[in-house]
């Protein structure tokens, strides 16, 4: 990836992180940890990978995105606002009564949302349905989904894993945000889904393991996925829960908690400093 492209994606990711903290601070409710963990891949998907046009939101040939770990939707709302699907002011209404930005994504409320999710394990199945439909009708679009590593504890995820392999859904790319933490602590302490890569390989998927905060690796993984024929691809990404906000990083306690005034100011300060540093780069 050339430097300019990387700089652009990093800038978008920082803007997404700013959107995430703004949403959750405004609502005084929401899930910052997992949202911050996927900000980089969401930046890559919306600003580099997917064929989605804010001017043509209903285009039937557009790529589809399903956020299977629906609680991390602040990252997606922030990206959609950046992309221009709706005004940035909406972010401040997140989780508030009458808002078009529900606590978990709803395709009927928010422009740019392709599927309603939030109950873990169901989004990956819906993504399978979209990919199957594209195959059955010869449609060219691809289907992208993001799962949490804790979400893999849901049995339905493995029903979907069988299904995607059975129907050779090579137009489907799942991304597992492997940040290692869930509400009650480490995933390996609560109910370990590890070894995640071996499990998916055993279920017949093409498996790619990356650093979820490295844009070169993210790009290489999605490019590789396009070359895989006859099987679905999963990108297992090692990530940091709360990435980008010093006091939230790797803290399970920030799974579903809103920052107070001081914490919010601190988060904005850190993200602005990162943006300034990025701008200063040649």
């Amino acid at each position: 990836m050339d430097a300019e492209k990387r700089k652009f994606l990093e800038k978008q990711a920082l803007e997404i992180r700013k959107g995430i903290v703004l949403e959750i601070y405004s609502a005084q409710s929401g899930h910052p940890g997992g949202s911050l963990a996927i900000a980089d891949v969401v930046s890559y998907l919306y600003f580099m990978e997917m064929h989605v046009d804010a001017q043509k939101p209903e285009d039937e040939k557009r790529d589809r995105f399903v956020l299977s770990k629906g609680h991390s939707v602040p990252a997606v709302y922030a990206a959609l606002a950046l992309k221009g699907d709706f005004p940035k002011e909406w972010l401040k209404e997140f989780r508030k009564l009458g808002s078009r930005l529900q606590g978990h994504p709803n395709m009927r409320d928010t422009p740019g949302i392709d599927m309603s999710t939030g109950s873990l394990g169901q989004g990956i199945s819906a993504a399978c349905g979209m990919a199957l439909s594209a195959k059955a009708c010869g449609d060219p679009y691809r289907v992208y989904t993001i799962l949490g590593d804790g979400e893999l504890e849901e049995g339905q995820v493995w029903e979907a894993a069988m299904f995607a392999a059975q129907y050779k859904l090579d137009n489907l790319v799942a991304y597992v945000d492997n940040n290692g933490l869930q509400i009650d602590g480490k995933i390996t302490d609560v109910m370990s889904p590890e070894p995640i890569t071996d499990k998916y390989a055993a279920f017949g998927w093409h498996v790619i393991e990356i650093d979820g905060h490295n844009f070169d690796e993210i790009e290489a993984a999605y490019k590789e996925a396009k070359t895989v024929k006859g099987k679905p691809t999963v990108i297992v990404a090692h990530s940091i829960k709360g990435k980008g906000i010093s006091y939230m990083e790797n803290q399970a306690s920030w799974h579903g908690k809103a920052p107070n005034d001081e914490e919010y100011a601190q988060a904005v300060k850190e993200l602005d400093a990162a943006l300034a540093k990025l701008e200063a780069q040649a």
Partner: protein
Amino acid sequence: MSEQKKVATRDAYGKALAEFGEQYPNLFVLDADLSKSTKTAIFKEKFPKRHFNCGIAESNMMSTAAGMAAVGKIVFASTFAMFAAGRAFEQVRNSIGYPHLNVKIGATHAGLSVGEDGATHQCCEDIALMRSIPGMTVISPADAIETRAAVLAAIQHDGPVYLRMGRLAVPVVNDTPSYHFELGKGVTLQDGQDVTIVATGLMVAEALRAREMLKADGVSARVLDIHTIKPIDDELLKKAAKETGAVVTAEEHNIIGGLGSAVCESLAENYPTPVVRVGVDDQFGQSGKALQVLEFYGLTAEHIVKAAKEAIQKKK
């Protein structure tokens, strides 16, 4: 009654899918390793590229159907009522109901008439579960003719539909030139003045049989076939309550939460009237021949007759 033609509603369902598959190229069918029992295999035979077996994984099937509908398909997802409404309830609620997607849940083997498989497969709670989901249309056809019409109506309806079918061959009661199916509208099969029997599914044929028995006792009973349990036909129920003053409900379902409850809710608000409910009295079923099981749990014309007399007694 004379020799009646009997057809299982699940047979009519499979045939209807195959029939309308021609006219609706956007129609897809999913099944969960039961296509020979749910009869979606009839569709598969004709349209193999539009039928997908999801294996024994109903939760995934329902959310997969939702994903297909989210990209513009009309999807029928079929399995037994127990697994469609029971096991996959939350998938139906969150993946299908909440976004109001065009998924039609073709649930067969509903109720006690599953017979020998026993309680684990005799779903008598599905109407209650499905009608509690906002925006869900719930249809329980009485016979083969109504099933065919219901499948077409479900295809043409924009939004989720739960279609309840049975395993057992049941009498064809709607084989009349004037038969007309309209979603949300009940069918008046027989007129009467003393009491109204409101029935659904295979209990409609029993209601007609009960009417003959009541007639012999000098009682004139009206028979309504309520194929759409949600939205229920408030007007038709109110009219019947007003004109006959007593109501009996008859369903192959728990009397809690099903047709009986829906009728009581409607009448309590619109025209309070004595109601006696015939159905499964808050019990689990058991193995046995379908007709024996139905008899054991009181789902027969004889029980409807008894209930009708009770309802008439309750008139002021």
